[in-house]
């Protein structure tokens, strides 16, 4: 399988006691919690960690987009990707992703990705997302139009990459009399498109359709959900008359490797708990703005999340759900081998800097992963896992 190092670039200096006064680290948490003197060091450190992953032989390094939050300091992920095109040599640079519905000019996304593709010599992987619910409060874009803007922006970007310009594009949300991309991407017909998602049936069907075959990435979810969605992808592909390959499936999971299981657990515990309980914290109304999902899915989320909301997660409850992988190199290797076999994904997207985690731990974990885990995972069979 292909191994990717994913970075959120969180504000690791966040004062976690913010939670005494505010119910979220997103959108409404005052930015006075951000110390302007600490940004430069954070970006230097995080870009350095991505560069190190390239040097250590990871197949890819990943950035992503979030707005107005301590959870991630990358509202413009292409800026980081641009810096990485100059300082990395081999790794794919995956932008997971840009939130298409949030912009009023998707051609600009097509242009930036084309620039990055040229600057990196064809090393980019593009990610297309809707953006999570809170982004709609931050961007002011109507959440009830999120799905249709996503599909329409996608069509426009793909056409901009693949059609000879100039051409006209007239949709319900986007209207251009002249679309004529300079530069064109180096990867032809276009750079790979990945779709990171928590996974609705609709998204999976759209990704897996034979005319697209986009790589579907399951993000930060309990194992049974990832399994269910990967199975659904394979089933849609089979119904569409082709066999889904492992390369079409990716699993994103926070990962930590240390000398022993015991050390890993002790060192990781505060950071993974801060990640889920403090950084990834918002009220349901922010997570699910009106019309962002169907009434049925919103209702389901409200009914299930009410239970979760009342109690904080611990490293053990998270581990039981399969929402974090940690341990000695051997333990982590065995876990991934087992899950790969069961779930049949071909891309592992390991988030290896977690919330408040300091630089030494991140670097140690990256190096141990590269030297003692990665060699055992690389040659894992790429053949499609039979649908359950």
């Amino acid at each position, binding site marked *: 399988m292909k191994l990717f190092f994913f970075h959120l670039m969180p504000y690791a200096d966040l004062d976690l006691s913010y939670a005494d006064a505010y119910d979220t680290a997103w959108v409404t948490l005052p930015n006075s919690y951000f110390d302007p003197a600490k940004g430069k060091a954070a970006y230097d450190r995080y870009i350095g960690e991505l560069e190190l992953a390239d040097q250590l032989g990871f197949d890819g390094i990943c950035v992503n987009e979030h707005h107005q939050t301590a959870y991630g300091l990358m509202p413009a992920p292409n800026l980081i990707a641009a810096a990485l095109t100059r300082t990395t040599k081999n790794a794919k640079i995956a932008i997971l992703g840009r939130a298409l519905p949030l912009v009023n000019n998707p051609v600009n996304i097509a242009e930036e990705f084309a620039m990055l593709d040229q600057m990196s010599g064809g090393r980019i992987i593009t990610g297309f997302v809707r953006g999570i619910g809170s982004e709609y409060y931050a961007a002011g874009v*109507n959440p*009830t139009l999120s799905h249709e803007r996503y599909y329409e922006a996608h069509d426009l970007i793909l056409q901009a990459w693949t059609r000879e310009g100039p051409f006209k594009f007239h949709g319900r949300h986007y209207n251009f009399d002249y679309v004529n991309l300079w530069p064109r991407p180096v990867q032809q017909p276009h750079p790979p498109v990945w779709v990171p998602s928590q996974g609705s049936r609709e998204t999976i069907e759209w990704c897996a359709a034979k005319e697209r075959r986009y790589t579907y990435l399951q993000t930060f979810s309990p194992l049974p959900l990832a399994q269910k969605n990967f199975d659904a992808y394979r089933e849609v592909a089979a119904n569409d008359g082709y066999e889904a390959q492992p390369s079409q499936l990716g699993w994103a999971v926070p990962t930590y490797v240390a000398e022993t299981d015991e050390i890993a657990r002790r060192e990781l515990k505060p950071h993974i708990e801060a990640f889920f309980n403090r950084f990834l914290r918002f009220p349901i109304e922010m997570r699910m703005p009106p019309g962002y999902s169907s009434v049925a899915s919103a209702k389901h989320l409200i009914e299930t999340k009410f239970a979760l909301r009342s109690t904080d997660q611990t490293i053990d409850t998270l581990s039981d759900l399969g929402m974090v992988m940690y341990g000695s190199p051997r333990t982590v290797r065995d876990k991934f081998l087992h899950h790969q076999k069961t779930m049949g994904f071909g891309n592992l997207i390991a988030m290896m800097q977690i919330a408040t985690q300091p630089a030494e731990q991140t670097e140690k974990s990256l190096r141990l992963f590269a030297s003692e885990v990665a060699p055992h995972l690389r040659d894992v069979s790429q053949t499609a896992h039979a649908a359950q």
Partner: protein
Amino acid sequence: MSDFTEEPVDVRGTTLSVQQAGAGEPLLFLHGAGGRNWTALHKKLAESYRVIAPEHPGFGRSQIPEWMLSMADLSLFYLDFIERLGLEGVHLAGHSLGGWLTAEIATRNTSRLKTVSLLAPAGVAAPEEPFGDIFLWTPEQATRAQFFDQSLAEKRLAVAPDLDLLLQNKAATARLAWNPRLANPQLPYWLHRIDKPTLVLWGRQDRIVPFACQPHWLKGLPHAQAATLDECGHAIHNEKPDAAAERMTSFIKGAKA
């Protein structure tokens, strides 16, 4: 036994649920973001008028055509609705989102209207005092903000909400009013077109559409009179139905004279 009738009405292929009661001059009542309810205010008004309370497209049991996206669409739709029912001399009234809609309709065409009543209307924002965030608030915060008298809010909170209806109505509201949030910045420039007597009724303790908005309306409306209810929050129809009905009927009678 219910004191109103309810039946579907088809307007150019879109079916709305319409409640009606009473007899006399037609009073078309347009509901707010929370959805259509037959309230004590409706009941009171139905003693003097034929009260017609449609459920807006996209809310509750009413359909919404896929192309309908804005308050501009909806206001023209309601002009069709008035024609479809063959109404003349209409007393048009609306609360909150429905008050905003009422003004949008009346800036476009008043030929079938006799009076206009705006009850705590959204649509025109007061820069000095922003609207409450009905989308980000929890259901409890939103319910409490409806009322001055918190015991009324508590009564409401004691009953489990219909989650499907709540989510559907919130989405229907967001579709029309997410950005700019619950307002049309162009509307103040067109209020002069409302050439019929206009009532601007507000609860002084409104925490959703603040009372501070009232003067912004009065500035632009050529035939307006203001009325204010004390110890009253946003949900005028639930908190002060008798006083609101009294203000509305005396305004309508005065407009006739």
